[in-house]
C-alpha cells in the first residue's frame, strides 16, 4: 500500500466516522428534546402527566413514536409535484445535519473546525427555508402555500437580526471560528477575574437576547409559529405530509432547535469549557457540559413556546425590522467602540 493511499484511506475513515457521529447526533438531539420538553416538561406545565406507559415515565415513548411514523402510509396528494414534494424533507434535514458539523464539544471534539464557523452555521441554517417553501408549494394545498410563504417571509426577516447579533460576538472574540470563540470566552476575564472565563452572555447580553428571539423565529416556535399555525393553517406546510417524510420534518424541527441551542451555548455561554479542566479531561467532559447547557437553553425555548400566544404576520415583520434590526446595529456599534477603547 502506498503511503498516499494510506493517508487517503485514513482520511476516508475519519470522514466516515465524523459523518456517522453527526448523523447520530441529529436524532439523539431530537429525541432528547421531544421526550424531555415536548412530552414531559410541557405536560407537567399543563397539569397533566404526559406519556407514562412505555417504560418508566414513558422514556420509550419517543422511539415508539418514531416506529409509528415509519410504518405509516406515505401519502402524496394527487396534484402534488411529486419530486419536489419528496425532496423537500431531505433539504430541511440536510440543513439541520450541516448545522451539527461545526459545533465543538471539546478542545478536539469537533467534526470540522471551520475558520468561518459562525458564517457557515448561519448560511446552512437558511437552507431549510428552501425546503419549507418547496414543501408548501409542492403540496398543492392552499394552507400549505400560505404556510410556506409565511415561513419564507419570516425566516428572511429574522435571518438579519440573528447575523447582526452574532457580529457583536465576532467583533469581541476577534474570530469567526466557533472553537476560537470558546477559547476567547475561556481565557477572558471579568474585571480582571478569570475564575469562570468570560461567557459572552455578560458582555453581549443584548446580542444574546436578540439571537434568542431570532432563533425562536427561525425555528418557527411560538410566538413566531405562523408557518405551522395550527389554529389557522391546519398545519401549514406540513399539512399534506405523513409517515417518514413527516418524521423527517419533525425530527429536523427538534434537531434544529437542539442545534440552535447548542450554538447559543457555544457562542454566549462558554461552550464546552469548564474552569480548571483542560486537555483530554475537557474532551471527555465537554459533551456532557454542552448537553447540559443545550438542555438549559432548550428549556427556555420550549417554556416560551408553550406559554405565549403567537404574533400576527405583519406584527412579526414590524417587530423584526423596526426593533430588532436597529437594536442589533446599535449593539455592533457599541461593541466596536468598546473594543477599540479597551
Amino acid at each position, binding site marked *: 500500500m502506498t503511503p498516499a493511499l494510506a493517508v487517503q484511506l485514513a482520511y476516508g475513515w475519519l470522514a466516515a466516522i465524523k459523518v456517522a457521529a453527526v448523523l447520530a447526533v441529529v436524532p439523539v438531539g431530537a429525541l432528547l428534546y421531544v421526550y424531555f420538553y415536548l412530552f414531559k416538561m*410541557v405536560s407537567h*406545565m*399543563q*397539569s*397533566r402527566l404526559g406519556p407514562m406507559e412505555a417504560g418508566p415515565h414513558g422514556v420509550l415513548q419517543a422511539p415508539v413514536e418514531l416506529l409509528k411514523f415509519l410504518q405509516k402510509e406515505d401519502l402524496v396528494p394527487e396534484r402534488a409535484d411529486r419530486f419536489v414534494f419528496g425532496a423537500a424533507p431531505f433539504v430541511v434535514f440536510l440543513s439541520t445535519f450541516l448545522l451539527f458539523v461545526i459545533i465543538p464539544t471539546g478542545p478536539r471534539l469537533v467534526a470540522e473546525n471551520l475558520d468561518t464557523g459562525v458564517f457557515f452555521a448561519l448560511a446552512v441554517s437558511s437552507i431549510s427555508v428552501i425546503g419549507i417553501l418547496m414543501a408548501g408549494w409542492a403540496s398543492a394545498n*392552499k*394552507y400549505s402555500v*400560505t404556510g410556506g410563504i409565511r415561513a419564507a417571509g419570516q425566516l428572511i426577516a429574522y435571518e438579519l437580526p440573528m447575523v447582526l447579533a452574532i457580529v457583536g460576538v465576532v467583533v469581541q472574540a476577534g474570530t469567526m471560528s466557533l472553537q476560537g470563540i470558546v477559547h476567547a470566552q475561556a481565557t477572558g476575564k471579568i474585571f480582571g477575574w478569570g475564575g469562570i472565563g468570560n461567557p459572552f452572555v455578560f458582555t453581549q447580553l443584548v446580542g444574546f437576547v436578540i439571537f434568542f428571539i431570532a432563533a425562536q423565529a427561525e425555528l418557527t416556535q*411560538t*410566538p413566531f*409559529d*405562523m408557518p405551522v*399555525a*395550527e*389554529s*389557522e*393553517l*391546519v398545519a401549514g406546510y406540513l399539512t399534506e405530509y405523513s409517515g417518514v417524510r413527516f418524521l423527517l420534518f419533525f425530527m429536523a424541527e427538534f434537531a434544529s432547535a437542539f442545534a440552535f441551542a447548542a450554538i447559543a451555548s457555544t457562542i454566549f455561554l462558554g461552550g464546552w469549557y469548564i474552569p480548571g479542566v483542560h486537555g483530554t479531561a475537557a474532551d471527555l467532559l465537554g459533551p456532557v457540559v454542552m448537553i447540559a447547557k443545550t438542555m438549559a437553553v432548550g428549556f427556555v425555548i420550549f417554556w416560551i413556546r*408553550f*406559554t*405565549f*400566544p*403567537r*404574533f*400576527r*404576520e*405583519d*406584527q412579526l415583520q414590524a417587530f423584526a425590522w423596526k426593533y430588532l434590526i436597529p437594536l442589533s446595529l446599535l449593539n455592533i456599534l457599541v461593541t466596536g467602540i468598546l473594543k477599540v477603547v479597551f
Partner: protein
Amino acid sequence: MTTTASDWRQAAYVASQAADARVNVELETDGMTLNLGPQHPATHGTLRIVVRLDGEQVLWADPACGYMHRGYEKLAEVRKYPQITTLVNRIDWLGSFANEVPFILAAEKLMDIEAPPRAQYIRTVLFEMARVANVTLFLGDMGVQLGAVSPVFYAFRDREHVLNLIEAATGGRFHPNYDRIGGLKDDLPKGWVDETKAVMKKMRAFCDEMEDLLLGNEIFQARTRGIGVIPKDVGLEYGMSGANVRASGVDWDIRRDEDSPLAWKHADWKVWTHPDGDSFARYWVRLQETREATVIIDQLLDGLPAGPIMAKVPRIIKVPAGEAFIHTENPMGEMGYYLVSKGDIGPFRVKIKTPSFNNVSITPWLLRGVYVPDVITILASLYFILGDIDR
C-alpha cells in the same frame, strides 16, 4: 329604506376597497378562495366559512351553517313535554342545563304552575354553573386560537370540578336532564353546597390565572385590541346578544332587566360592559361574567331556602292551549323558546331562538378586510357552539 350609520360605514368601506382594488389591478394579483371548514381546527365544530383572500387579506367571507342540523324543533313536536328536555340539552352542549330552563319556564307559564322557591334557587345555581362551565372553556380556548396552548388545559382542569358537581346533583356531566315542569328531579346531595363554594373559589382563582396568563399578555393584547370591532348599533341590528353586545357597551342583561321566577333578583351582582367592542373587550367581559357567576352562586347557596323541590303537578302533563315566549340570558346570549300548545301532551310547535346563530351572522360584515389570523381571533372571540347555531 332608511339609511343607518352602518350603511354609511359600509359605503365608506366599499370606497376604500375600490381604491385598493385599483391598486391590485395595476399589480395584477390574483385572489384565492379558501374554505375554512367544515373540517378545520379553528371552527370547533362543523361551521364552514368561505373566504376570498387577496394575499392574507379577506375580501369577503360567507359563513355556511347547517352541517349539524338535527331538527330539534320538529322532533319536539312529536314528543311529550317531559321528554323534550333531553333534546334541548344538546343545543348548547357546554352549558346544557341552561337550555332546559327557558323551555320548562315556558311550559310552566302556560300551565300556570310555579315551582317552589327552593327549586327556583337550585335552578338558578345550576344555570350559573352551566355558565361557568361554558365560559371557562372559552377563556382557555381563546388562547389556543391565538397560539397559546397551555390555557386550555387549565380550563379543562378547573372545568372538571364544575362538571363533577353538576354530575353529583343531576346525574349527568354533559346532559343533566334535571329540570322538570313544576320543579326538579331531585334535591341536592349531602355536602354539595359546601363543595360548590370551595369550587367557586377555585374558579375565581382560575379567572385570576387567565387574567395573568392571557389577558395581561402583550402579544394577546396586540392580537385582540382593535380587532373585530362591533359598534353598538351594528351588533344590535344583527340581533346579537349576550357578552358580545355587552362588550360593545350595550347594558342589557335579561337576568337583571326582566322579571323572572328564577332567583337572580335575590343576589347582589353587577352586569359588566366594555365600551370598545373588540375581541379583547369580549374576552374581558366574559372573564368578568364568570367571576360574577361564581359570586351569584355563592350568594344563592347562602340564602338557599328549605322546602319542597316540586310543585303539585298532574301525573300526565297536558299543557293548556296557548302561546308563550320565555327567554333567558344563557351563557352564549339570549335564548328563547316560543311554545305553542293546543292542549295536548306534546307541544304543537316549538321555535327555538339560539344566540350563536345571530352572533355568527355578523361574520360577513365583520370579516371584510381583516387578515387570516384575525379571522380566527374574531371567530374565537364571538364564541359560538355549532349545536347552538344549527340545533
